[in-house]
């Protein structure tokens, strides 16, 4: 009796030990067998594309992946095309996708038959911030000046952005709701064009990301009024945040990577480790601090929880804007 018990126990122990040993071994052994496709949810040349290609370059330079990472732009329909594409890649271990906030807003705004809960989260690399900008020639110095000027314009104040339903239009809607003001929202084809139209005097204000206005700001052609962040941005120490000014308006753009639904766990572990190493690389750290990006790395379940929370928040914003019926 005792003998057999011991034997069974020993066997059980041994197999458990073998499994415990084997598990991480399998995980660290997995390597991509073929080039990895990096789907970008935006067109060529935009902020999201530029960042995704920067990641690709650092991965290549630091040899973080055994196979090349190949960026493919699928920006159609505000990322609808990319989301549908990734859904069809179910179980594929050689595809990852670079996302931005349209990851939530696009499926909320139009039914494209995808649920982001199905995708496999990998890593959130950065949060990009938003700042309210005006032309440096204008008299507006503070947020109060701004609100007064927009009110005086009687709805003809031109706010430039990258398209209805895009992040900056949500921020604009938040501003309108908070201060009871009305803008004429003029959509352009990308943050760079918006920045140029602000400096050229074709629009009156924008809520560009800092990186898009950096060049003009350094040349003294545009002026930041307030940041939509909780804490002051390091490169703009003199720009007050909305929070300090007593307005609870914080909005960020997430830059994350996800994999298709049902990606094998060992592949997820490989890519997660790859992005963890990437996050520590010197190039990335330098770039992020220059461009005023917040770099809190988030992976796995914590990232999924963040995604779902953000989706709910965007649902609320879009509902209050009247963009969607709400749920």
């Amino acid at each position: 009796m005792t003998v057999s018990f011991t034997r069974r126990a020993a066997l059980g122990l041994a197999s458990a030990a073998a499994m415990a040993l084997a598990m991480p071994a399998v995980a660290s052994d997995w390597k991509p067998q073929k080039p990895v496709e990096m789907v970008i949810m935006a067109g060529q040349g935009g902020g999201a594309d530029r960042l995704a290609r920067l990641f690709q370059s650092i991965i290549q330079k630091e040899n973080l992946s055994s196979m090349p990472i190949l960026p493919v732009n699928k920006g159609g329909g505000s990322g609808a095309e990319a989301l549908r594409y990734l859904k069809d890649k179910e179980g594929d271990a050689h595809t990852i996708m670079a996302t931005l906030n349209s990851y939530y807003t696009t499926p909320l705004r139009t039914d494209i038959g995808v649920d982001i809960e199905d995708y496999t989260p990998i890593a959130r690399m950065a949060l990009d911030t938003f700042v309210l900008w005006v032309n440096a020639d204008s008299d507006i110095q503070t947020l109060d000046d701004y609100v007064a000027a927009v009110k005086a314009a009687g709805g003809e104040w031109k706010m430039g952005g990258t398209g209805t339903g895009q992040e900056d239009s949500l921020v604009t809607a938040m501003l309108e709701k908070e201060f009871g003001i009305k803008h004429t929202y003029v959509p352009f084809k990308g943050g760079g064009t918006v920045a140029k139209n602000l400096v050229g005097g074709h629009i009156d204000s924008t809520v560009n990301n800092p990186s898009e206005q950096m060049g003009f700001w350094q040349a003294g052609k545009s002026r930041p009024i307030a940041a939509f962040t909780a804490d002051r941005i390091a490169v703009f120490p003199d720009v007050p945040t909305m929070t300090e000014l007593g307005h609870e308006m914080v909005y960020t753009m997430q830059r994350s990577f996800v994999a298709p639904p049902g990606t094998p766990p060992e592949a997820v572990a490989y890519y997660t480790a790859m992005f963890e190493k990437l996050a520590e690389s010197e190039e990335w750290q330098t770039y992020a601090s220059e461009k005023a990006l917040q770099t809190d790395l988030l992976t796995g379940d914590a990232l999924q929880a963040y995604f779902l929370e953000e989706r709910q928040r965007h649902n609320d914003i879009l509902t209050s804007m009247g963009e969607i019926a709400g749920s």
Partner: protein
Amino acid sequence: MVTADRVIAASLMVFSAYLMWHATVLPIGWEGSSGPGGGAFPFWLSLVMLLASAGIFLRSFVSPPKDDKPFFDPEMIRSVVLVCVALLVTIGAMQYLGTYVALMGFLLWYLRIFGGHSWTLTASITLITPVFLFFFFEVTLKILLPKGVTEPFFLPLYAIFF
């Protein structure tokens, strides 16, 4: 020629009507102070297209052209249709058999059977083209072509060249 002209004009009329119907999903009118709606451009342009193709259609009855040549060259139309079919079959096969198998099959058919070239020429072009495509597109430009079921055969190649 007249019949073909009418058939094409009529198809264009049907197509523009379809486009007009499709465009009405978004507002097609003038949206107050913000200019035309999202459907306005496609809708009104399709309408112009409908009117113009209707004009072509009616014109063919009013003043038919004097020399009525056949639209298709009866001797050559068979070749054109054959090539179209081969092209469509090749594209269809790309997703399942992979680009290389599909294109080699197409070249083999086109050069040997359709073009009547010698086996030497057929074989050399059929074999050189995929090698060139692999090195130009995949190895140099890093553009992966669809592989379909032939994917596993490429894994060793990836291991060597990437």
